[in-house]
């Protein structure tokens, strides 16, 4: 197996924490920034050149994309875990079959999902918050994307496989390449050809197709011990079962995330109309970007915290937690200042429509109220994960994104309309920040570090 991108774990226990965190976090942050930059530019093309209704139409399709991504995550998480186990065993024959099964599963699931989605497209979109006005946009976009659903699944799934088999850089190139090509086609199809929202869909599809071709080409390289070839694609019961066993949890989480977006969309449609949904699309893009940067920082933190916890260097664990929290807070405070005091600047990128702008600004100003502390919440959640306390971590992640959010979304909009929708997100952030702080306080108070002595005895 190629060792590209892997560092010796020893440095995790000795190198200065600040240096380590920088070294591990910066690549992740850059990747995350690229992903959200793409997200923003893609949407701003639609908002600027097609109009605010197109933005709303696009926002209506988010839950379907989430749902499709849920299936992708199921195969992706299960497949890559299984694949890395087999690679660790140097059981290359089985590893290749796992890889082949990942491809087949993606094709099968992608196909079934596409058929179901196409048959019920109108019902689904109406349920997710489309109106007479936005349906044409949403439908045009969605139908094209769904025809390419298998490609979408393959491009995400294979990039993941490529990373696991030892080519993280090539995997990253494929994604960055896809982003650039997508934006280029956005420009050509939307601005030059004037194809509207269909142009955005074709741009996405085309860039994913090119990305998939590149990925397959990389994975067919016969010089790699693990590569795609005939005879590995037949679905094997054991492999499929194991993939699903691991993948079911990320799947459920994604489905819940989808449910949350549906609730937000429906709440906004009922109380604020289509433009409010479009506004949510904008606000979502902006806040997403900053959360993604924080995610990048936590990804840098995880191996450092995990290793040092395992090696019982608890002072270093605390130090990396502190540093990551501080960096995350700085980033989120910056987002707070930007959105609270210069909201026009942020919104201007997406649309010139006065109504949408105003709605987006109103929403953004409410949503970011808690954001300086949200970074801390995310860091703590990931911290628990990196030291092997998965349950605490899941709880914290769910607390912010659904546990408190769903009931709030069911109640507040009835009394406060759109403001209620925005405020639900803020309130959920606030409560989950307190929960995270309490859990961290208890973790330290219980002296979790002190009791975990080097006490061997079974």
């Amino acid at each position, binding site marked *: 197996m190629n060792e590209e991108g892997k560092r010796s774990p020893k440095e995790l*226990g000795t190198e200065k924490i600040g240096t380590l965190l920088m070294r591990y976090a910066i690549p*992740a942050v850059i*990747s*995350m920034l*690229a*992903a959200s930059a793409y997200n923003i530019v893609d949407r701003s093309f639609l908002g600027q050149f097609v109009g605010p209704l197109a933005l709303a139409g696009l926002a209506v399709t988010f839950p379907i994309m*989430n749902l499709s*991504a849920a299936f*992708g*995550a199921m195969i992706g*998480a*299960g497949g*890559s*875990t299984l694949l*890395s*186990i087999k690679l*660790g*065993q140097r*059981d290359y024959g*089985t590893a290749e079959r796992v890889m082949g099964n990942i491809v087949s599963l993606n094709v099968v699931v992608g196909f079934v999902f596409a058929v179901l989605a196409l048959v019920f497209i109108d019902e689904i979109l109406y349920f997710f918050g489309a109106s007479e006005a936005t349906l044409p946009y949403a439908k045009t976009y969605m139908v094209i994307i769904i025809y390419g659903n298998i490609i979408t699944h393959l491009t995400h799934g294979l*990039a*993941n496989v490529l*990373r*696991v088999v030892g080519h993280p850089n090539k995997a*990253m190139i*494929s*994604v960055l390449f896809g982003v650039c090509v997508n934006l280029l086609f956005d420009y050509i199809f939307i601005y030059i050809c004037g194809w509207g929202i269909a142009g955005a869909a074709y741009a996405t599809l085309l860039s994913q197709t090119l990305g998939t071709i590149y990925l397959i080409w990389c994975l067919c390289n016969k010089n790699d011990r693990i590569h795609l070839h005939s005879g590995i694609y037949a679905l094997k019961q*054991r492999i499929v079962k*194991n993939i699903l*066993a*691991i*993948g079911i*949890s*990320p799947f459920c*989480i*994604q489905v819940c995330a989808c449910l949350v977006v549906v609730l937000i969309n429906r709440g906004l449609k009922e109380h604020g109309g289509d433009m409010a949904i479009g506004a949510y699309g904008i606000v979502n893009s902006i806040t997403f970007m900053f959360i*993604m940067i924080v*995610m990048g920082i936590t*990804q840098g933190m*995880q*191996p450092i915290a*995990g*290793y040092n*916890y*395992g*090696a*019982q260097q608890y002072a270093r664990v605390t130090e990396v937690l502190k540093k990551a929290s501080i960096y995350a807070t700085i980033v989120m405070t910056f987002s707070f200042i930007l959105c609270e005091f210069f909201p026009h600047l942020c919104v201007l990128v997406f649309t010139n429509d006065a109504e949408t702008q105003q709605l987006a600004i109103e929403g953004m100003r409410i949503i970011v109220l808690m954001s300086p502390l949200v970074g801390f919440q995310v860091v703590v*959640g*990931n911290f628990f*994960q*990196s030291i*092997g306390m*998965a*349950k605490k*971590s*899941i709880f914290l*992640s769910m607390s912010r994104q659904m546990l408190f959010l769903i009931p709030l979304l069911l109640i507040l909009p009835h009394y406060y309309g759109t403001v209620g929708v925005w405020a639900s997100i803020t309130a959920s952030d606030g409560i989950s920040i307190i929960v995270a702080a309490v859990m961290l306080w208890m973790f330290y108070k219980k002296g979790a570090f002190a009791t*975990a002595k080097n006490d*061997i005895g*079974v």
Partner: protein
Amino acid sequence: MEKYVITIGRELGSGGKAIGEIIAKELNIPIYDSYLIDMAAKESGFNPELFKKADEKPGKGLGAAMIRTVASPFSALSNYYDSSVSNESLFQVQTDIILKKAAAESCIIVGRCGDYILRNHPNHLRIFIRADYDDRVKFVCEHDGVTPAKARQIIDKNDNQRSEYHNFYSETNWGDSRAYDICVNSSLLGLEGTAEFLLNFARKYLKIQ
């Protein structure tokens, strides 16, 4: 003389470990079982608590993967799936240690998917030891000082755990005769008798003087 390795899969309460110990003593070779956990912990400098948690429990319901999935829909962009203290990496540490032990000397490995991990070892005998259910209950009662009802509970839970673990990490089913060279019911000959029988078998097959 060429090095050999004997791996023993066993049901809880079948006396598999005790039988392994008798064989190890007769052959004058070391035997590694749950003790492996400590060994792994010490050698890698890792906290043994973490190993106990992952001990023969498969890595499913992996919270790690869950959260990372929520975190980012752009899976390829992130370091997603290799969390630092996951059950998978613990299995990897155990694998490395089992391979190292088997390469260094002749030995017996009990449990931990040794049959699969050492599948490429040229001189490898794979044994599976089971026992009648009632005998297992009796064994667990005496061993752990629990009531028969409690023992049954322990046994059923353990059967589930071991087969899940084995079926997840290896390519064969736990206790399936096709995964082993010899499967034996220790109820028939008892611990001493089974050990003697297996010892003869091992001596003949592995050509041990």
